[in-house]
């Protein structure tokens, strides 16, 4: 049942062991071993999920991922809350880099400004106000024994489920079948074409078949001549893989291009995100604003009542 020859299995096991050793316990040396095991687990993960492409692309992705996950683990395992908050800020910088890498520029900036700039600073303020003296027992040993093992086990189970789902071969859906048909057609006809369109240009956003026919959405605009040739070739190409899909394509085949509004990678990124946010999600934006206001008032009320509890006789004297 469990495939011990796969790097993914070892990655999950090492992840659990490393995290279990890293969280605060009595011994410094055990935590250092935990950090080494954790790095080995990340190496296994990167072996289990190979990525293709230019080496610089891959290196940037790997480094950002290492920063995000590594500093997250460091944040969990620091005994001092100040260090934990600072490591969490570094983790947020890594996540912001990952957002930028996906082309989500606005979110990357917002993560740095709001999260690392405001939320982490609030944490540091509270650490400053509520600071017990010296090193506390509860930071040094946390919940010892079986509680720790159960906690780490729950996290490892979650990672195991995600890894298992991602490494199992999924049955191909309509989108996968159409994508592989287009790729096969592209590979066959590319030498005889002189348009210089590379395989990546055929990126398929969506393909859906129903009673009316087959609807295909491509990301990039293509020359009309090429499109006509693809339209003619696609039903034949689908014939070998999936008969119902080919029948739908014969009935009616719509090939569309992604509209500008839907193109997440469009250079006009912030304007399009704003259009979605203030168009589709307008009411949610209003509600989020109200929730922010309510939280602000609530936080001040709670903090002020706490102050009054600290000096109970002040109100009577005045």
């Amino acid at each position: 049942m469990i495939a011990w020859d796969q790097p993914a299995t070892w990655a999950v096991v090492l992840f659990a062991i490393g995290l279990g050793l890293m969280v605060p316990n009595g011994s410094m040396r055990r935590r250092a071993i935990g950090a080494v095991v954790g790095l080995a687990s990340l190496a296994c993960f990167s072996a289990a999920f190979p990525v293709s492409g230019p080496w610089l692309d891959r290196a940037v992705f790997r480094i950002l991922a290492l920063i995000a996950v590594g500093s997250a683990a460091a944040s969990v395992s620091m005994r001092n809350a100040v260090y934990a908050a600072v490591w969490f800020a570094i983790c947020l910088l890594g996540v912001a880099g990952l957002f930028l890498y996906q082309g989500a520029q606005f979110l990357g900036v917002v993560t740095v400004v709001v999260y690392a700039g405001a939320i982490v600073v609030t944490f540091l303020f509270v650490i400053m106000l509520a600071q017990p003296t010296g090193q506390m027992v509860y930071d040094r040993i946390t919940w010892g024994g079986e509680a720790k093992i159960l906690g780490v086990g729950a996290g490892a189970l979650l990672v195991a489920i995600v890894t298992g789902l991602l490494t199992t071969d999924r049955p191909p859906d309509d989108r996968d079948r159409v994508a592989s048909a287009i790729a096969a057609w592209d590979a066959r006809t590319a030498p005889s074409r002189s348009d210089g369109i590379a395989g990546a240009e055929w990126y398929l956003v969506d393909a859906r078949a129903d009673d009316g026919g087959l609807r295909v959405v491509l990301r990039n605009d293509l020359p009309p001549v090429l499109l006509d040739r693809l339209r003619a070739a696609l039903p034949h190409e689908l014939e070998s893989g999936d008969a119902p899909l080919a029948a739908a394509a014969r009935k009616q085949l719509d090939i569309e291009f992604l509209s500008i509004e839907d193109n997440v990678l469009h250079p006009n990124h912030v304007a399009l995100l704003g259009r979605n946010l203030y168009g589709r999600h307008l009411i949610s934006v209003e509600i989020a604003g109200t929730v922010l206001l309510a939280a602000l008032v609530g936080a001040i009320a709670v903090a002020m009542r706490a102050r009054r509890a600290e000096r109970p006789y002040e109100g009577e004297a005045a």
Partner: protein
Amino acid sequence: MNERELLDGYLLLGGLLFAIGLVGFLVRRNLIVMFLCAEMMLQGVAVSLVAWSRFRHNWDGQSMVLFIIAIAACEAAVGLALILALFQRSRTLDVAYWQDLREPGQSRRVDRGVPEERREERIWPRLTPAGVMPREDQDKNKETHRARV
């Protein structure tokens, strides 16, 4: 890097961040660190939402991450105010201090086998309390900061 590999990598990263946050929330006892770990779980979800948004070319994922950030800010404000109130009541950040709220029938937790604090671990970097003028340290020879964690 092709899009499917990118999606897989980001989903895995989101899962790892969520799992690390979950483990931290279950294992740590410091209220502030537990709260940080909850924020880390939100980050894990945000990473996978952005990945899906790119893969399906749908803006809703990125809009939802913006809402996550807004709610995280609310949560931080209210949660930290509560932590402050609890700290002023009990003078400790230990979540086990509030174990009187546990279910009936559960036994009380007692810390056993606490390892001895080593000498070099006693000196602990501190932030200056808010609103108080920092005092000059008279004894220059005294070790005030530990270089190693």
